[in-house]
């Protein structure tokens, strides 16, 4: 079964090729079959491989499929090889499985779009690039996938390119992530330079021997990689692109948020855990970034009116949790939350998409309302997703995954009480804005008539994902509730485990869990009171000057765009404008000028006259002979 691994990334690429080359001729039905089918088969193969992996793990708990050697020159040796271990298996599974449902859903969502096949081509490429990223066994493939993902996000966010605002959002996403990519590329070079190999596993095994803990190079390399990770994963300070990325079609958002793109940063750090462990400083920075991001994004989520933007900020916030977990060294908890998050975030985005489709493409949730009756399936599944996001205790998967992170934020080696407090407070905010969204959208008065009733292609993905958002959490139960550690045991082969250390203080753990649970319930109640029972409290508050300012501040994502505009963009433009003729510019003016002079000088020799040509050859011969005679 393992031998079919190469098909997993190949099929989406194949789908992309077919759709890109013959898309127009295929028609919508066939395009859908190709687009969805390629991912579907990919997912099926992944599941079969996964079963095989669980039942009889390969030797060394990792399977490497070397397809061919791309370049082999001395020590620079690049294999096109896939590396499958527990970590990449989880990612592959989530990408293909969740990706498949999103694709299926898109068939209905995009049915009326004229660029149907182009959409599926991009989506397939997106999934393919992401699979390359997580399965690649060397830095070059990883980087290739990384850039591919960036390119696809650009294409998909700007999918409706006729509206210039979408193009702007796409460019913003591209440029902001590029900032991180540049840092990451330098980091990768640094790794290659230090270890002389591109193979990730070799780097990881060599790292502890070459670098001692706290080595400067290790810190620099990990921080540079972190730069790439925060760019792709929309973490502080590069989180500004993600809310604007909502300009793309909703399934794109689902794909970006759940399965691909934003989780790439999480994968990168988890994959490079061996190096991060050598740089405790960087670990701490990761944790801080995560904690700060989850709070800031949470605040921003409180006041959003666009349903998709709420979800966008919730994603930033949830990825913040994952970073927090990575930073404190709770590797498997981060990956666990990643998986659960993928389920419920995909579910939420697809649900939001169904709502938007039903509301004439209206995205302002305050213009909606009372949709619970009209769209029952959407409502129930959306509720499940929201519950999971808000980490409603015991019944939802999100509770188990988030609880693990909150607990480790305190108890793990790198954790402390401040991180824990931030995480707990973040959980409270999350519950609040999530259910604010639910209450505003589904309850109260129906304001817009329902224009589109979803068919099975929307319902089935919603139900399947809802199932996982509910029950997916039971594969990993905390120490206080049976200590069932299927998931982290599974990951143990790829990521260092730390559960044994962390589950000592049982009473504290109980306290943490109960507090989180209670806060989640309270936040839901609060949202119920403020947005359904007595909405005047909110309006009263926002009518005051302070309230209005605060609302505006939160709405703009805590003013980061404003800040960057003043901090970077304007000074940069100013410098560029006022300083047109500096030394560097002169250099760049001089270079083309010189090249042009050379061109004219050389083209003078091309006179078109045969006799001069003959003379040239003769002179060349004479000069050559002179050289050898003199030497």
């Amino acid at each position, binding site marked *: 079964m393992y031998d079919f691994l190469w098909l997993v990334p190949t099929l989406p690429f194949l789908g992309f090729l077919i759709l890109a080359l013959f898309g127009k001729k295929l028609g919508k039905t066939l395009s859908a079959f190709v687009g969805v089918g390629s991912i579907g088969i990919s997912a099926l193969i992944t599941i079969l491989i996964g079963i095989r992996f669980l039942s009889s793990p390969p030797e060394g708990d990792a399977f490497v499929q070397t397809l061919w050697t791309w370049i082999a020159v001395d020590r620079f040796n690049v294999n096109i090889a896939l590396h499958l271990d527990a970590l990449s298996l989880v990612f592959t599974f989530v990408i293909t499985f969740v990706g498949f449902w999103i694709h299926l859903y898109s068939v209905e969502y995009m049915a009326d779009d004229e660029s149907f096949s182009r959409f599926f081509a991009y989506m397939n490429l997106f999934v393919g690039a992401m699979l390359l990223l997580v399965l690649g066994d060397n830095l070059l493939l990883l980087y290739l996938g990384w850039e591919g993902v960036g390119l696809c996000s650009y294409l998909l966010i700007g999918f409706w390119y006729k509206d210039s605002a979408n193009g702007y959002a796409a460019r913003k996403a591209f440029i902001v992530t590029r900032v991180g990519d540049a840092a990451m590329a330098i980091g990768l070079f640094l790794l290659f330079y230090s270890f002389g190999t591109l193979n990730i596993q070799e780097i990881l095994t060599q790292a502890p021997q070459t670098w001692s803990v706290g080595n400067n190079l290790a810190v620099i390399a990990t921080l540079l990689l972190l730069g790439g990770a925060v760019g792709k994963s929309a973490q502080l300070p590069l989180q500004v692109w993600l809310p604007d990325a909502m300009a793309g079609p909703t399934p794109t958002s689902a794909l970006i948020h759940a399965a691909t793109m934003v989780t790439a940063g999480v994968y990168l750090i988890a994959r490079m855990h061996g190096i991060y462990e050598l740089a405790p400083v960087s670990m701490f920075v990761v944790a801080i970034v995560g904690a700060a991001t989850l709070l800031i994004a949470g605040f921003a989520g409180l006041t959003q009116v666009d349903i998709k933007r709420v979800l966008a900020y919730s994603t930033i916030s949830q990825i913040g949790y994952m970073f927090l977990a990575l930073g404190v060294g709770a590797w498997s908890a981060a990956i666990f939350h990643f998986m659960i998050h993928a389920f419920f975030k995909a579910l939420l985005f697809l649900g939001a998409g169904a709502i938007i489709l039903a509301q004439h493409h209206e995205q302002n949730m305050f213009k909606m309302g009372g949709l619970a009756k009209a769209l029952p399936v959407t409502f129930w599944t959306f509720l499940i997703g929201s519950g999971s996001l808000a980490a409603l205790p015991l019944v939802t998967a999100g509770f188990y995954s988030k609880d693990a992170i909150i607990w480790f934020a305190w108890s793990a080696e790198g954790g402390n009480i401040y991180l824990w407090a931030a995480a707990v407070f973040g959980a409270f905010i999350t519950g609040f804005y999530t259910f604010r969204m639910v209450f505003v959208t589904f309850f109260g008065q129906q304001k817009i008539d329902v224009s589109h009733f979803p068919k099975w292609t929307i319902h089935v993905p919603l139900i399947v994902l809802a199932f996982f958002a509910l029950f997916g959490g039971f594969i990993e139960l905390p120490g206080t509730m049976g200590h069932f550690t299927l998931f982290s045991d599974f990951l143990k082969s790829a990521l260092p485990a730390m559960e044994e250390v962390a589950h000592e203080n049982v009473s504290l753990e109980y306290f943490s869990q109960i507090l989180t649970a209670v806060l989640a319930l309270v936040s839901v109640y609060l949202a119920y009171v403020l947005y359904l029972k007595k909405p005047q409290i909110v309006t009263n508050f926002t009518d005051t000057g302070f309230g209005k300012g605060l609302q505006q501040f939160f709405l703009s994502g805590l003013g980061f765009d404003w800040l960057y505009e003043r901090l970077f963009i304007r000074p940069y433009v100013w410098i560029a404008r006022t300083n047109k003729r500096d030394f560097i510019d002169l250099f760049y003016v001089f270079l083309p000028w010189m090249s042009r002079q050379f061109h004219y000088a050389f083209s003078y020799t*091309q*006179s078109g006259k*045969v*006799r001069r040509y003959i003379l040239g050859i003769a002179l060349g011969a004479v000069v050559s002979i002179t050289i050898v005679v003199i030497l």
Partner: protein
Amino acid sequence: MNSIIPYLIVGAIVFVLGIFTIVYKKNAVGILMGVELVLNSVNINFIAFAKFVDTGIHGQIISIFVIILAAAEAAIALAIILNIYRMKATVDVTQLNKMKH
């Protein structure tokens, strides 16, 4: 006649004369004649060397091939020159500078 030097001198003179003709002549046919001169100087050299240096007949063989190919070259060249004359009513190579730079 036991020295190779005279052959070499004659060969070199003919070679230089040929090159000079090629560079100096404007007439395409004249240039061709220059080329023939050069090739013949090579033939002189080859045959001389075959006699003085090599014990075999390699030099003579290659000179036969040079003669043959010079003939073939001349044939094609004359055909092209004929076409040029048809189109431009001149065989002056300095007129052939339509394509440049």
